[in-house]
């Protein structure tokens, strides 16, 4: 008896969702519209941003020439980093940083981001946490 795996699985077994191109869209998942964006999520957090950034791209040449994937634009849970195609550089929206440390802990595999904490009293404030 030959077995048809489709009997058991909705998709290929063992396949991880993250690597796939055909991740279901929010619409397919029946999400409420408009889908909550990261910007909206950050809108729920209270920020007291400092005037100067506590995050710094060390060498923008690395972003331009070596890092093709722009890893930080995916790994940062607050979407602090954005690739600006026109200007060929990463912009850093430090005001919405959740201070998790992802960018200094492998979120940029090129270790091209210098992260400090904001000055005491500045930055994100969780009301629940």
């Amino acid at each position, binding site marked *: 008896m030959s077995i048809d795996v489709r009997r058991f699985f909705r998709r290929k077994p063992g396949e991880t969702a993250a690597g796939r191109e055909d991740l279901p869209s929010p619409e397919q998942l029946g999400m409420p519209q408009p889908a909550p964006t990261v910007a909206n999520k950050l809108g729920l957090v209270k920020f007291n941003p400092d005037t100067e950034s506590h995050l710094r791209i060390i060498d923008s040449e690395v972003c331009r020439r070596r890092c093709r994937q722009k890893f930080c634009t995916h790994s940062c849970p607050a979407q602090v980093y954005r690739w600006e195609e026109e200007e060929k550089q990463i912009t850093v929206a430090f005001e919405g940083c959740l201070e998790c440390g992802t960018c200094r802990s492998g979120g940029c595999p090129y270790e091209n981001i210098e992260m400090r904490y904001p000055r005491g009293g500045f930055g994100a404030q*969780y009301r629940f946490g």
Partner: protein
Amino acid sequence: MSAATSRYDAIVVGGGPAGLAAAYTLAKGGASVVCLERGDWSGSKNMMGGLIYSQPTGSVFPEFWREAPLERHVTRRDMWLATGDSAIKLSFETADFAVEPYNSFTVYRSSFDKWLSRQTAAAGALMIRETLVEDLLWDGGRIAGVRTGRPQGDLEADVVIIAEGVNTFLTEKAGLSPCPPRAANVALAVKEVLALPKERIEDRFDLDPGAGAAIEIIGETTGGLPGTGFIYTNRDTISVGVGVLLDSLVDNRAEAYNLLERFKQQSQVRRLIQGAAPREYSAHLIPEGGYSCMPRLYGDGVLVAGDAAGMVNAINSEGANLALLSGKMAAETVLACRERGDFSAAALGRYRLLLEDTVILKDLRKYDNATKFLSTHHHLFGLYPELMAALAREFLTVDQLSKAEKERLLLKLFRSQVPTRRLLKDFYQAWRALT
């Protein structure tokens, strides 16, 4: 202690559970201590996908449950194996957890840590908030104090207890941890707090008034990446989040918030949170490197506690209680050294010995290989839950096939997906790593 004192017995860096337990214990022990917290208040930078346990917390802050801001005492712990469309649910529920001292609680860290800091201040520790420690002061090879980001911001002490949390800026500067936490050793957790009236929470989760549930979900929740999803009930909100090992997240260019959205859309989860309004989004790293990734815990004039010391039991989602206990022990060590006026590495090394004897290091050693195992065995999170669900689905589906035929079919399926040797190897390694 007067305001003019610029030199203290001890400086505690960080006003989270580890730092507060240390400062509280030191103050109670009669030492002059200042605790520096970078947030507007203790807890304002903290989040958690876990529980506060009565026993360890109570051992530092006695009978805290009578007054601390707690959300719900947890009477049910669930573990789900989820595949996206199916789930196998293991549930443990006991009335024992519904009476004092309750075993565990859900809390909002923002208010719970703040309460702990009030107790600490009341015990006599000097709590300085909104102040970031940027560097350490050295006296030869000995750590002699800290440099804060404030004008005239230097502060000296006999000993510095570093309880700075998962981002180990100072631990690295102290030369105790040579490198920043690497992606393989930390998990990124993202979480949302969703508001729902408390009666509705109790209905949906089948809970007595005031009681709570904690659900941990492995499998498809994290898109097959090594990690877990979690759901905790608070009084009138639900905390929903996912935690994923950072290296696999980065390698797969997966976005944590998208994983969270997917998780929220899984039918079993969606049912629980339907109609709940988002109140907060948060993100935090969790040190999951375990025993072998811990920094050196002491040096001349310095001790490390809590997340900074890697004291998280990733398998059982315990961190805050280990932090509390390690902070307490760091403080006890300092109190003992204070008697003899010796804060050398040799004297402070007693901290390590104390820890070795406790549940903290015993548990951490036991699960030392867990993270490594999990990150090298991705399929555990994708394939096995799928197989288990397939098994359950097949057996519970009544159709033309006889049960014997189904058994044969399933056996074949398993063999086609996992060679027997690999299956045995996985189980052996899992057993070694996780038990």
